[in-house]
């Protein structure tokens, strides 16, 4: 609490300083706005133009993120929205299997674009802060189109709507094995815009990632905003555009975000990471995971999504094949010390394939959230039972466990003596 106040204080002080700096160095444009007479004298060509929107940014380049001071002018009395868009594009996709209320059918259409901006954020007037907070608390059910309407930002939403979206008619079974299905005809601009909003949500997920309420609009139409560009975002050029309505938009102000080693840009995730962090994180988690007979993905996924600005889809889709290697390597190394039963593993493994096909179909029939809760408690019960299995009372009754423990102690002693360094795995029957 206290800390956030300190940061707020620093931010405000910084903003004030930047404002002083801005008004000192850019004295000419501000005069232009306040004194139309001077403008006429400077150039007759610009005088007759309607009160357009102008925008400037205080820095032309950022080093892996930073805070950008944006200022400009707009017609007095209108709310100003600022769109910050990266030039770097990424892929976004969404599989629409939601029940269509009109037809009562599930469409099974895969929407996919390669043109989603790697970074997109729409900043609105500060007055919308409360409404935005409310939206953030709504949970995962929020929709971009409703949010834009509620926040009055519908007209300002522009950049992602231009992304060309392909759609594929998939079958459910096809989608389970990963077939995209048949490519359908292109959508018109309006439909494309609507679908782009769904893809925006699929890509960025939470309202806080795509919306901000930082724009301070003065009664005379000048506006300013301190915009934070986080660490680990896409490198390259970003454009900043101010809009008051559909037709009244400013020219784009441009800044560049620079990324240098050990940060690397992940082209499909649309974000940059320090390459050492995911490596060591994955290593620690996978050692733990393989020790307990799992891959480790169930810990790695939430950690990566929390710690880095990465989309959950790409995290899940990349962790899965990574886990394949930790499991594969684990299987190989466990098999060398004979900690594996091929018969049991393959028999149950084949039965899981069938289950894996059925799961996605069932997802349509149940509400996930409430079931998550149930399985959480089931798992707590199971872990309690497993813990009980490690208690002396249980072990005392179980002769086989005792025999294995005894054998373990014997082997450990032998290993400690160093005499049987290499016989250990071979003796395992």
């Amino acid at each position, binding site marked *: 609490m206290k800390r956030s106040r300190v940061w707020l204080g620093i931010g405000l002080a910084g903003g004030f300083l930047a404002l002083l700096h801005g008004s000192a160095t850019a004295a000419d444009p501000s005069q232009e706005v306040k004194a139309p007479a001077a403008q006429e004298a400077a150039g007759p060509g610009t005088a007759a133009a309607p009160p357009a929107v102008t925008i400037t940014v205080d820095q032309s380049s950022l080093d892996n993120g930073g805070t950008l001071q944006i200022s400009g002018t707009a017609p007095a009395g209108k709310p100003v929205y600022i769109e910050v868009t990266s030039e770097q594009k990424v892929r976004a996709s969404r599989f629409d299997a939601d029940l269509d209320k009109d037809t009562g059918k599930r469409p099974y259409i895969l929407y996919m674009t390669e043109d989603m901006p790697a970074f997109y954020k729409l900043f609105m007037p500060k007055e919308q802060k409360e409404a935005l907070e409310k939206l953030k608390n709504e949970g995962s059910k929020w929709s971009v189109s409703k949010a834009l309407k509620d926040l009055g930002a519908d007209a300002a939403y522009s950049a992602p709507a231009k992304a060309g979206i392909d759609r594929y008619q998939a079958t459910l079974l096809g989608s389970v094995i990963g077939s995209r299905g048949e490519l359908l005809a292109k959508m018109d601009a309006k439909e494309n815009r609507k679908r782009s909003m769904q893809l925006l949500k699929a890509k960025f997920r939470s309202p806080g990632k795509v919306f901000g309420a930082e724009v301070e609009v003065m009664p005379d139409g000048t506006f300013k905003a301190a915009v934070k560009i986080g660490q680990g975002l896409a490198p390259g050029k970003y454009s900043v555009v101010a809009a008051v309505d559909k037709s009244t938009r400013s020219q784009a102000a441009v800044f560049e975000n620079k990324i240098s080693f050990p940060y690397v840009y992940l082209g499909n995730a649309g974000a940059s990471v320090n390459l050492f962090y995911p490596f060591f994180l994955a290593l620690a988690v996978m050692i733990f995971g393989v020790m307990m007979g799992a891959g480790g993905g169930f810990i790695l996924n939430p950690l990566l999504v929390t710690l880095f600005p990465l989309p959950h889809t790409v995290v899940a889709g990349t962790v899965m094949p990574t886990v394949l290697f930790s499991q594969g390597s684990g299987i190989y190394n466990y098999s060398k010390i004979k*900690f594996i039963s091929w018969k049991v593993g393959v028999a149950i493994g084949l039965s899981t394939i069938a289950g894996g096909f059925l799961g996605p179909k069932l997802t349509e029939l149940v509400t996930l959230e409430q079931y998550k809760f149930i399985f959480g408690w089931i798992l707590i019960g199971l872990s309690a039972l497993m813990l009980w299995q490690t208690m002396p009372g249980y072990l005392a009754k179980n002769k086989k466990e005792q025999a294995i423990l005894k054998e373990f102690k014997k082997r450990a002693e032998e290993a400690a003596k160093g005499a049987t360094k290499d016989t250990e795995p071979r003796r395992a029957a």
Partner: protein
Amino acid sequence: MHVQFWGQEFKINVWVGCALGFLMAIVSSMFGFGGGPFMIAIMTLALGMPMYLAVGSSLLVIFFNTVTGSVRHFQFGNFDLVFFLIMFPAGLLGGWIAPQITKRVSPVVAKRVAVVGLGILSLNLLGVF
């Protein structure tokens, strides 16, 4: 099905294992987490397998699930090559280091490690983090 481990014979009901494995795969593919923690619990609790044997066999079981899941994610364009190249050596290394640790700790300790893992997943599912 009879399985030998360190001179002890374990009678394992594979049908129960397959039925539970089938259910586990449905649940894990629905919620998008690997079935590993569930599998290890099934093997130690329902099938009565010793912990050492359960860790390796559980990995083998969920490997099948991971293969189909990976293919699906790849087709849907969720795969990032650079990200993968950063992490997959960690996967190979982790899969080598973990068995070295497991064989040096007692099966009781190994089982408690799994209890911690199960606890983490359950808290995640309950929305604690």
